[in-house]
């Protein structure tokens, strides 16, 4: 469950960063973001971040869950900031992490 929360938070931050021209350029080598994509990334990013709150709260309850979630936000945003500059393609691919993490949580 913690892993799923981490993956969702990462995907959320990734989407938010792709709605920013500087990071869109790092990943896709194009500075201009298509309008629809920008909106999708922006709102999808916030939605994913909100969603990432659910697994830790489900696993630990509200008190501890919020503490874990805050930690997960840090732990997902930091590698993203480094990957965007050193390995942008890896940063993009890791955005799919919620799928395997979700399957793992279902098992």
């Amino acid at each position, binding site marked *: 469950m*913690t892993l799923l929360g981490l993956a969702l938070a990462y995907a959320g*931050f990734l989407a*938010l*960063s792709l709605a*920013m021209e*500087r*990071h869109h350029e790092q990943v896709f080598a194009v500075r201009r973001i298509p309008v629809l994509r920008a909106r999708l990334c922006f709102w999808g990013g916030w939605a994913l971040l909100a969603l990432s709150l659910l697994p830790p709260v489900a696993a630990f309850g509200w*008190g*501890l869950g919020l*503490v*874990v979630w*805050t*930690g*997960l*936000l*840090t*732990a997902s*945003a*930091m590698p*993203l*900031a*480094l990957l*965007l*500059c*050193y390995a942008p393609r890896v940063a993009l691919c890791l955005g799919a992490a919620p799928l395997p993490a979700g399957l793992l949580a279902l098992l």
Partner: protein
Amino acid sequence: MKEGFRQSMAWLHTWTGLLVGWVLFAVFLTGTAAYLRPEISHWMRPELAAVSPGPHNAEVAMAAMQRLAPNAPSWFITLPEARENALRVFWRDPSSSGRGFRNATLHPDSGEPVAARDTRGGEFFFRFHFELHYLSVFWGRWIIIVCTMFMLMAIISGVITHRRIFADFFTFRPAKGQRSWLDGHNVAAVLALPYHLMITYSGLVIFMAMAMPWGMERAYPNPRQGFNAELSGNPPPRPRANAAAPLAPIGPMLAEAARRWDGGAPGRITVSNPGDAAATVQLVRAGHERVSTSAQSVTFDGVTGAVIAQSATPGPAAQMHGVVYGLHLARFAGPALRALFLLAGLAGTVMVATGCILWAVKQRQQALKSGRIGFGTHLVEHLNVAAIAGLPLAMAGFFWANRLLPLDLPQRAAWEIHAFFAVWALCLLHPLFRRGRRAWVEQFAAGAVAFALLPVLNFLVTDAHLLASAMAGDWLRVGFDLGLLVCGGLLGAIAMKVARHAPSAARRPAHSTRTAEAAP
């Protein structure tokens, strides 16, 4: 401040940060290490085997205390838990002068004092991070309180100063001199901001009775007892009856406490007036089961075993205090959450380090424009090396001393700590002889080698090395040895990065070559 709000905040941020930066770096790094206090203590006592705690530990402890200190006015027993493999007891010795506290570490199954080397273990880093060393507790804590206040100011003024907090949220641009240091400082600060605020503020709350006692002194005529009793929910002590009476068995008390806590287990036992007719036994619920440190306790009559008090649900303020305190200590954190705390703690360490370096880089750039590098810049650069690169090396020195000092050396635990400071002092002298980047590279490289060789040293001088621990299933020790290798690897990577910086800097325009002089 004539320039406007943001500029004056930038000024405040720079100077509050720089003045106490080196202390804060040490506090962050040793405090982060203190998240692994039990693990460090376990590793530093290679004689101890892993034991699993059980309900019999309390009975063992009570029996041991009957032998060790039958006449003491009070016993304090800390029971082992999954991460702690020894019974820790302390008591007041009526025959000794002063406050007269004595303590011992006992085997949780036999109750015999453990035959392990004399060491402070992880306790040293924990203590150092809030009261330093070689100073009285009073002054040490006051220094830390003042530095923590500065830290809080630096955080708040830093957020105000940071013009593009959202636009630069994920931005790190490497190999761009001053720009990169600022980016690194921002990323480490902003992405772990909730942690930094929490740890700084909670650190102040822990020392609130020292830092801001006035409200408490007004509301409570006798703050020491009234305030603390209300905060901890402890009943007032019973006077001694001066009539001998044996203690009731602890087993039924444990069962009663577990019933009242929905199966929760006690972590501490406090016995007042053991052997007297007025004896009381207080069971305090284990700290790692809940976030809050506000103690849940049940107090029993020591002779009849009847319940005489149970801690009430604390009021909102006391509950808040307990949660804030608990968040700082993070005893409740399981392995995954502890890893997150470690990561955030390291982010704080990096934040302070990059802040100090950034100041030196900026200063050197300005100094080069005016053609003269001042004493202040040299001093900051020098202290940066000794604090940032020197401390990890000193920590490695502490571990080396733990393995190398003769086992029968008097005051052995103190000598381990002397070794730590001796290594650190050498790191402070070293940049006098090796200027600039060379000092950085050499200290980081020495730290890398010292950490990486610790598992090897362990193999040579103890029976608790990597292979033996794996065979014995002591995964804690295995993990610690591997962790030491990771630390060595990290420091080595930093050393390489600093060393390689020279040729790439030479290729770039002149201004970044100059900044490269000031920092790695």
